[in-house]
């Protein structure tokens, strides 16, 4: 007896620990159609402008649903995949979420997003959204997201350095090299061009400009375009900026777009590839730069601007959400033409409505004009949920370019290897 008395506290502790642990798994699932709250996930850190804008959206939304509070949570871009996986595994996700438009198909394939085909078809304003962007949010012909804003990349350059070196913004590949060399010669200690050797999207403009393709679908199989002479020409040009022309340093093999942009912002490079939305970050690094920067579209080899990747963000409804209709109502307020224009311009993006971008709206804007030009001619990465593995996990294109810059492979070998790897991933069962 005595002994058991002594043990009683121990047993109690064990028992309560077991209960706590068991309790972790339980709960949830009991908030079926509680419409008092709508959870919205937004990407990024949430600037003041964005928060103010979303408050406005909520006010508008509350006119129709006065009893629903909108709770906005910001998720850093790089955290998003982990957050999505955790939400999907645990069953507690948002009702509405933003996501990068390169990721929509992958998450649709993971059954994270709701099929909004019929809702989207019945929404009149949706008909004016740029078709490339709409297509990019589809999987097997079904719509899983609605484009929110669009962005393309162009080249930022230092107008003062260009003037000193006596060069004009280049319009073809030869001029690009000549300009980079001229400025670098005039400004010792700087690079002609901040090449993001470890990024794929700026490179695609060169690939497409040379007439190459990433991959095309022939019947049931994907065929990589990397072992064509056009693609090899693009890889050769891209990598020779470092290896032959030396207008970017060897370290550029490891740079991503942010690294490259920082080189430009801190006055170490004369040109950098960046999207219109990154202007704010560049200014944050160096507020003075506003006086001496300009932009021009990424040139093709022959004097025409190269096609640009149609980047941007989509808004999707979370499949596990029990408030699909409420969520859709929020989406249509957020994405209404008027709100879209208001928001896109505050962030340095473009609205997704063709009638809003095609007019002469941006022609006189020193920075936005080049992007508006680039937006006229966009292309997409291959439309398959397996693309994300080529692009993010195996980083086939980045590895191809880096290996040539690092001198590990020849252009022929690197393109052949990349093509083979890409085809094996895209055609895997």
């Amino acid at each position, binding site marked *: 007896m005595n*002994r058991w008395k002594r*043990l009683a506290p*121990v047993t109690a*502790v*064990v028992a309560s*620990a*077991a209960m706590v*642990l068991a309790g972790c798994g339980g709960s949830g699932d009991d908030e079926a159609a509680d419409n008092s709250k709508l959870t919205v996930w937004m990407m990024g850190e949430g600037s003041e402008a964005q928060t103010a804008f979303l408050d406005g959206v909520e006010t508008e939304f509350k006119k129709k649903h006065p009893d629903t509070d909108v709770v906005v949570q910001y998720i850093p871009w790089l955290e998003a*995949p*982990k957050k999505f*996986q955790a939400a*999907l*595994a*645990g*069953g507690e996700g948002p009702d509405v979420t933003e996501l990068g438009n390169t*990721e929509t198909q*992958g998450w649709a*394939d*993971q*059954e*994270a997003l709701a099929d909004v085909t019929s809702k989207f078809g019945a929404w009149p304003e949706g008909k004016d959204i740029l078709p490339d962007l709409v297509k990019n949010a589809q999987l097997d012909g079904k719509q899983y997201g609605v484009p929110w804003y669009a962005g393309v990349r162009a080249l930022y350059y230092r107008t003062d350095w260009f003037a000193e070196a006596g060069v004009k913004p280049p319009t073809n590949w030869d001029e690009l090299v000549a300009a980079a060399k001229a400025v670098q010669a005039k400004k010792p*200690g700087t*690079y002609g061009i901040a090449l993001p050797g*470890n990024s794929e999207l700026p490179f695609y403009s060169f690939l497409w400009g040379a007439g190459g393709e990433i991959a095309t679908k022939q019947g049931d199989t994907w065929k990589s375009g990397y072992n064509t002479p056009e693609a090899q020409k693009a890889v050769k040009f891209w990598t020779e900026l470092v290896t032959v022309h030396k207008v970017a*340093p*060897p*370290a*550029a*093999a*490891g740079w*991503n777009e942010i690294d490259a942009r920082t*080189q430009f912002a801190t006055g*170490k490079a004369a040109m950098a590839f960046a999207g219109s939305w990154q202007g704010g970050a560049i200014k944050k690094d160096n507020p003075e730069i506003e006086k001496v920067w300009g932009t021009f579209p990424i040139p093709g080899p022959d004097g025409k601007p190269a096609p640009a990747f149609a980047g941007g963000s989509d808004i999707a409804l979370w499949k596990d959400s029990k408030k699909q209709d409420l969520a859709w109502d929020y989406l249509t307020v957020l994405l209404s033409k008027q709100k879209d224009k208001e928001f896109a311009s505050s962030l340095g993006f473009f609205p997704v409505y063709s009638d809003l971008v095609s007019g002469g709206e941006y022609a006189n804007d020193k920075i936005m004009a080049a992007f508006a030009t680039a937006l006229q001619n966009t292309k997409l990465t291959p439309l398959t*949920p*397996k693309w*994300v*593995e080529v692009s*993010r*996990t*195996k*980083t086939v294109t*980045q*590895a191809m370019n*880096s290996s040539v810059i*690092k001198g590990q492979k020849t252009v022929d070998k690197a393109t052949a290897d990349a093509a083979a790897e890409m085809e094996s991933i895209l055609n895997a069962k």
Partner: protein
Amino acid sequence: MTTLTQAPETSAARETPARRRRRVDRLPYLLLLPCLVIIGVLLLWPLGQVVAMSFFRLNNVRQLRGDREWPWVGFGNYAEILGDPFFLTVLRNTVLFAVANVALTMILGTLVGLLLNRLGKRMATFVASCVMLAWATPALTGTIVWKWMFDDTSGLVTWLFNALPDGLSNALFGRADWTGYGWFNSPLLFFAILTLVVVWHSFPFIAVSVLAGLKSVPSELHEAARVDGAGPWKVFWKVTFPLLRPVFGILVVLSTIWDFKVFTQQFVLAGGTQDRPTFMLSIYSYAEAFSPPPKYGLGAAIAVVLTLILLLVTGIYVRMVLKQEEES
């Protein structure tokens, strides 16, 4: 050995009341129970899950939730990994890295331990605290600082190499301007830097453990050896090492385990899971399992392979140590 096997027989023969004995025996287990429950829930259960997952094809997060079927693939995941030539690269990287790092960590740690033993009290405290600072730095923060030191434009290392006289730098490395040099471009250089970071992080533990061992060795033994005319090299191998063999045994096993599963340092230095030529088993497992599209089954199989290799390596080593002890 003989006394151990005899003990229960003799006590049983003594015919103590069986009831009483059982009572006394049960208490320790009951006291262990809370610990076992926690270890079971937090360690054994997930471990079992990983092993189980490695036999299924798990490519969708919803499967983890139990919303979807788990298709059984038997050893399919293992066959896929072992059949992939990339696995050989990863395995080679892992083994070479671990061997180099265990050796360097042990050598440096032992040397610092011996130094600490010889130093005066104040100096020893000073050196020991400096060394412990490296040990106390979290792997993540420490590595970020190292990465900054190797930054290609404003890093300390880049600056140091730039500060070398141009002629010397040209003669040694064939270049004088190091700004923009890609420190992490070649796998070999990457592994050299990773080794530097990992050894820097792990040698303090070895040093302090060796010091603790040395303190327990009577100093007369060393003095006697020295009086007999043995140099430091001989004293170490003939006196110190044999006495500290169990300590070294444990330290090598621990270092092997740590260096085989290095993850944080590599993840930070490589900037994520992009640099596939420098993959080692743990980051390979992580990349396969969690990079989109997820392949949890494949990632789990890699983790199991890593665990088996570790068990094998440490098992062989522990046997070796035990055998040597029996012999001596």
